[in-house]
Structures are given as C-alpha cells and as structure tokens.
C-alpha cells in the first residue's frame, strides 16, 4: 500500500506501532533523533515486576520493525501544512508528504539538578535512577564506589508532584522503579542498609504490591515516609540526608554512600517542538493534549495525527505498548475509511 505513515520517535511506542503497521501491510517511516532505537527503555537494565531484561524487549522490537523505513540521527526541520496533508522536511534533506503522523516522542527525565537541595551535580555520591540503570548495564560510573557501600538511599518523587519544580503530576513509575532498584542494590550489596524516602507509595500495577512487600520482608529495605529536606556532605565525602519521618513525627538523619534520586517524567522538548510545528495543543500538565483524556487518548485534536506512549503523560512499558497497538489499528481504520 502506498500510503505514507510517519512515526516521530523510535522508542518502544514508535517501534511497536511500526511492527503492527508492517503486519497490516503498510511501510511506515520512523524518524529518530538519536543514533539508536529503543528510547529510554534501551538505556534501562531490567523491568519490573518480573525483572525482564529491557534489552530483550528492545531488540525483539527492533528486529520485527526492521522492514520499516528508519531514519536515525534525523530531526524534523519544519512541517508545511498542505491542502489535506503535510510536507515534512527532514534534517537529512529528505522531504515526505503524508497525511498521517503518529507522535511517539515520549518523555524526558526530569533534570534533577533543578532540585538543588538534593545536591545532584554538586556532591559526588548523588545519582539519578537513570544513572543507576546505566551503571547496572555498564558498571561504569565513578560516583558508585563498589568497595565501600554500606548505606544507600532512594528519594522518591524528585521533580514529580512538586509544584516548586513546576511538575505537579505523578510520574507513575518511580515508586515501583525505586522498589526494583532498591532490591537490585540489596542483591548486589547484601550488607548495605537501603532506605527509601517516600511521600506516598503508589503500587497500582499487576504484582507491584507483592514486589513492595517482598522488598520489606525479604530484603529488609527501610521505607521512611517523609520528604527529604536537604542533603549535605560530611568531611570524608559521604552524603548526609536529613528528612522527617512523618509516621513517628521525628527528624531523621542518615549518612549514605550513595543517594539515588528518582527523577520523574516531564514532557520532552522534542514533543513540544513537534507540537509547535503542527500546532498541537498542550494539556495543563505540560504534556500533549489528547482529543479526550478518557475515551480518546490516542487521538489528537487534529485530523490524521495520532499519539502513542508517554508524549501524553507518564506511562509504564505495557501501557505504552498497548497504546502503540491501538494507534496502529486506528491508523489502519483511518486509511480504510478514506
């Protein structure tokens, strides 16, 4: 079939949608800014709750989507609106005329250095969830010192549910990610004390609650309810975390060898850039606005433009994949109707 379908973003949403569209007999075009496919998931090590290797999921998707037209290291330079279609100019000089676009631009990880009181970028022992996954994958991070790992802390909701960080929404996946990463760290350093500082624990998904109970019961991870007020550094270079234990009503102070900040999800700059080019509206949470947040999450208010994945808000991997499939079907039906 000759219809051009442009998928903006080669993360798991874009790849899954491409696989489905290939199965339906189309030949979609994937535009990816970076030099590899798979997006954030490609940077991850294992996925909750069954510790599925993220690499397996991504490589399976990439091999299935291999027949699509894939442009790596490519960005959209500009988009011209034609009569009933769009002319997309790519940074590699190719121009595409299409009437169907699937936006799968995803999210950005919140810049944890904006929460300066947590000391990311200031103290050597403070890293983010993403840095930790990178270390799991490569073992290469000078901030993580294998030889002396006696106490590790996780701070939940860094840049999520935080008006002062300009993000009032919940990033959905960090609670369970923190539980997962805490367990992984405990497995690597069984002697270390592991603390999680949380305001609420949102264990909404399949088997999440079991995972959390196991973290407490089987791994002895200490969950402290209360936000961290400040982080400082002591003379021998370890970090001191001050927080309030709101359940006992007392201030707590712990000295740690590693502090992991669970940076949340924010709308990516690329999503806003694309939204500007095609004149798509943003919702009040800063993510792209769907035609309807209940009944029609994958439809944009513009004809022929669809969404899948975290560009419309924080999502888990299975949710993203489900949306990608739904979007592929929606595109197929859209083409059939014309």
């Amino acid at each position, binding site marked *: 079939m000759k219809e051009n379908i442009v998928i903006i973003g080669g993360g798991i949403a874009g790849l899954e949608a491409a696989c489905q569209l290939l199965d339906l007999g189309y030949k979609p075009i994937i535009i990816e800014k970076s030099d590899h496919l798979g997006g954030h998931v490609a940077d991850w090590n294992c996925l909750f709750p069954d510790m599925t290797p993220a690499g397996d999921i991504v490589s399976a998707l990439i091999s299935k989507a291999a027949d699509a037209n894939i442009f790596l290291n490519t960005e959209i330079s500009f988009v011209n609106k034609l009569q009933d279609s769009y002319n997309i100019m790519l940074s590699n000089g190719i121009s595409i005329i299409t009437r169907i676009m699937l936006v799968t631009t995803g999210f950005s990880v919140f810049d944890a250095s*904006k929460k*300066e*009181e947590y*000391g990311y970028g*200031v*103290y050597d022992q403070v890293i983010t969830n993403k840095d930790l996954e990178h270390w799991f994958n490569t073992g290469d991070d000078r901030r993580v010192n294998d030889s002396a790992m006696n106490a590790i802390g996780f701070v939940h909701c860094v840049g999520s549910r935080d*008006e*002062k*960080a*300009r993000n009032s929404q919940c990033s959905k996946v960090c609670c369970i990610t923190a539980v997962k990463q805490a367990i992984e760290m405990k497995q690597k350093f069984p002697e270390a004390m592991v603390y999680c500082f949380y305001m609420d624990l949102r264990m909404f998904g399949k088997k999440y609650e079991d995972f959390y109970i196991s973290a407490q019961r089987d791994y002895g991870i200490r969950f402290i309810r209360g936000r961290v*007020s*400040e*982080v*400082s*550094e*002591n003379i021998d270079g370890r970090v*001191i975390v*001050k927080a309030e234990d709101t359940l006992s009503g007392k201030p707590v102070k712990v000295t740690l060898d590693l502090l992991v900040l669970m940076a949340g999800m924010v709308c990516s700059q690329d999503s806003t850039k694309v939204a500007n080019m095609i004149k798509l509206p943003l919702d009040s949470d800063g993510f792209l606005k769907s035609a309807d947040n209940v009944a029609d999450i994958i439809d944009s208010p513009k004809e022929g433009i669809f969404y899948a994945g975290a560009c419309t808000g924080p999502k888990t991997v299975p949710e993203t994949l489900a949306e990608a499939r739904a979007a592929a079907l929606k595109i197929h039906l859209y083409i059939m109707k014309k």
Partner: protein
Amino acid sequence: MRERFLTGYNDFVLPFVCGMLFVLGYCLVGLVRIIMQLPAEDRKKFFISLITPKTLLKNIKDIFLKCLIHVDIWKRNKLLGYMHSSIAFGWFMLIVVGHIEVFLYTSDLGAKALYYPIFFRYFVAETESTMKGALIFFLMDFFLLVVLSGIALAIIKRVRSRLFGMRRTTNPSFLDLIGQYSLWSIFPLRLLAESFTADISGGSFLTKSLNYVFTEFLSNHANMLPAWWAYSCALGIFFVVLPFTRYMHIPTEILLIPFRNAGIKIVNARKGFAKAQVYSCPSCGLCIDACPMGVLKGNIKDTTVYLNRQIRRNNEARIEEISDKCLLCGKCTAICPVGVEGDKLRIAQRSVRKYNFGSDYSNISASEEILRCNKFVNNNNTSVSNPDKERVLYFAGCMTALTPVIRKATESILSKAGTDYEIMDRDGGICCGRPMLMAGRFDQARQLIEKNTEIIMGSGADTLLLSCPICYKIFREHYALPGIRVIHHTEYFDELIRTGRLDVRKGGTRYVFHDPCELGRGCGVYDEPRNVISSAGELVEAAKNRKESICCGGSLGSLTLSFDKRKAMTENALANLTADSPDEIVTACPLCMTTFSRYADRPVTDIAQVLDKCSGPGRN
C-alpha cells in the same frame, strides 16, 4: 494702603476662620496625643533632638526640601516634582508674602490678624504710596500664577497620569474627592476675587490685567462679595475636611521629619511614630507602580497607600490581609517621598496578632553547638589561640543549606585565599531568627538570637561571614556581637580581590547582577557585588536596579501569597533583569537564586560560583 472699612470685618471671613480654627485645634490635639503615645524613652530623645542645634538645622532643612520643594519627587519625575512644589511652595510663599504685606501696611491688627493676611485685598484701598509695594503686588500675583499652574497640572494628572511617570494612581475616597475639588477651586476663586478688587486695592500683572480685560463684569462691585464668599467657603471646606482626607499629610509630615531625625522607630503598631507615618501618607500612589505584586494589575489594593488608608479606617480584616500578603521587599519604603516605612509598618501589624501557642526554643543547647565550631579556642576553652590572625566563622544559613553549590563555592574561595575559617552550621544550625522577626513573632526571634549570639561569642572568631542576605540583615541589626565584624560574602570577596589575596582572571561572559532586597535596600550593599562581577567578566545592568531592583517573588516575607501567584512576579523580575540580554544572571541570595532558576531561560548563579570559576590564590 488704607483700610476701606472702619470695622475691618465682613461676614464672608467666617467660613475660613471657623475652618482654620478647627484644623489648628485638631492638629494641636493630634500632636499632643501622638507625642504622649511615644514610649517615654523616645519622647525624651525627641525633645532632646529639638534643642540640639545639629538636628534642629537638619529638621529645618528637611522640612524645607521635602515638604515645600519635594526634592525626592523632582528626582523621580520633573513634571511631577514641579506640580508638587508649585502648589506647596507657591502656597507657602503666598501666605508668607501675604503676612509681610499685612504687617507692612496695617497697624493695630488684633483679631483681624486671623483673616487679614488671606483677604487683605478686600479690606484695603490703594493710595499714592502703594506703588512702593509694587514688588509685593508682583510677588503675590506671581506665586498665585505658580500655584495655578500646579493646579492645572494636577487636573491633567488625574486624567493622564502617564505623563507624570505614573502608570497607576490611587483611587481617591469620597472625602478625598471633596478635599481635592475644594483645593482645586481655592486658587481660581482667589484670582477671581482679587481681580474684582484690583481696581480698588491694586494688583499686578495677573489680577489687574484681568480686571481691565473683563471690565464689564469685574468692575461691577455688586459681583464682588459673592466671589469673596466663594473663596472663603472653598478654604473653609478644605480645612474642615482636611483631617479626614489624604491632605492630613501636610501637617503630619512636619512632625514626621523631626521624629525620624530624632532616630525614633516604630514600637506600637498603631500609635506614636506608626500613627505619624500613616497620617503622613499623601496617597500619591507611587508605591502602586513600585510594588512587585502589582504585575498583571494584581494586588493593587494591597499596596502601602491602601494599608495606610485601612489603618486610618480601623478596618482590621483588610489590615491583616494587606500586612500578611506583602513580600517585605521594601521597595515602597525606598521610593516613598515622605518616608512611610511600608515594610516595618506591616511587621508591626503582624506583631499584634495573638497566637494560641508560641514555640519555645529553650531546650536547644548552645553549648553543644559551640563544641562543633570552636576550633579558634584553646583546649581549656578560655582564650583564643591566634588572637592576631583573622578568624572567620561562616554561617551558611538554612537557605544556603538548600543550595549547596553556594556553600561549596564559598568554601573553595576561602581556601584559595588562605582564610582560616570554620563553618558554624555544617551539620545543621539554629535559624538566624529573621523569618520569625518578619512574621512579627519577636519573642521567638529573640530566643533564637540569644542562642546564636552565645555560639558566635563562644567560637573565638573575629569575623562572621554570611552568604545569605536574609541572615545578614538580622545579624547586622538585631545582634549585639562586640568585637566581631559581620560581613556578607559579596563584601568579603571584594575585599579579598582588593587586597590581592585572590587572583581573578577576567572572562568575556556578560553578567547582570540582581540586587537582592535584603542586601540592597535592606543593608545598602550595592557596589561590592558589582566590583566583584566586574573583575570576573562584563557587568551589564538591569532596567531597574539598585534601590529600585524588583523582588524575585520568592521572598519569605509574605505569609499568604501562594506559589502560583508568585510566578508572574518572578517572570516580571526576570524580564527586568534580561533587558540588556546578559549571558548569565548573578545574584547574592540563595532564595533569589532558587526562585529565578525555576523560570529563567539562562543560567542563574550565585556570585560565589562566578568568582570561584575564575579565581586562584592571590600573591598576598
């Protein structure tokens, strides 16, 4: 000049005389009451200042320059300055020259002294010798013209305040309007009345010419009395409403200036000096444009001019709302032409609030804290180990604890400069007390001040270094630390560079400096940070800077402003800072830095970071 009437009296003087006696009586009672309301110590200070030649001269000079010439308004806007000084100084000169005239040409005044200087022209006729007073005739007409020009400008200002450099102006109350219209009508009516009698009593270029030009109407002496009646009534109405309008600032300011020069401070929220300030407010509305809360036309009714109005009306609910909302940035105080201290007035209102509980800090042990930061003291805890060397105690404060880069950069600079220093609150310290002071909870603040004083005095340091101007202000103003120099890091860095203890390489980055409220208007530190930045890169200025710098919006002064309401204020302040498109915004307050970096489109850094990046150990 000879008197036209044997009695020297006409009924039309009555409205004026009654009004004047009323206003004089009112002011006298008010004066005694305000002085009696002052604390005994302040009252003594005030009376002593009145007989001290130095303050006496300053009082006279200030009253002349501020109340009559309005120099502060001239500096702000020439047209606005001319408008104010033409009315005030012109009217004053009319009264002075009027009196001279009366005393020159009449003898045996008696009760006539009450109204003769005002209505002289009605009661006298020109004689042969009158022309010798031509200068006085000329002066009277001249100053009348000056006042009339001022009134004309005032009328224009009501319609087009932008011409006078004011975007917004106060909404007058009903009585203010009556006072205003009677004031506006006084001088045209005087011109009319004196023009009627110009062919009898004589006049100069204004009144006489008018009399000649409209000779049909003005030479008809039957028309004369109504004009003089109208003139007297306008004066009478103005004086009767004056105590209840904004024009009360005219007599009150004459009292406020000696109070201020005597060094009196606000003690009671509503009485004494505070009352003098409230009544000195001329409702000019300059504070409306100055207020950082006024962006997007918001919170206009929460500015100092409206606070003063509500205090005069005893509207407690609104007083509380206005006092609690304020950011306490002090800009209204800085630009107020009469010197109403909007921030201190609000803190005083907050201090009378009754709370059901008060925090008690007596369980904090200062001696434990001293042990953590007493490295300058010998082991026997009595003497300082190196009494001749500089011993710096660095108090980072709680805001700096939330912005660890500042502390890190400051420590790095101190090490490069070879300063012997100790951190007072490395592992958490006691609050400086300023937030409690701003909330009007003086007792809590005092407890914290006592604890910190004990720690500082026990540390053996000779310099207290602060990187947060919020702390700096309270350490300077409310702590008694004999023998210890209290210094802000901007000042200390400037000193390090000047004395060659720090070597700075100048780069090409364009920096704009944001004057934090507490450092600039609060402590008067403007030049030192600029010196430091100029040695590190190119310094550009914000559209409004120094005394008129705009609050970042993050101030902990406000007790009620919500986070989302502050956003517009921060964005407005950022737009002001980036007017000259700098590469980087530099400030010297951890709170400003956090607030700005939330919305800024370019890096926001503390001055310590800037200096740390481009400095090395100096030669000395």
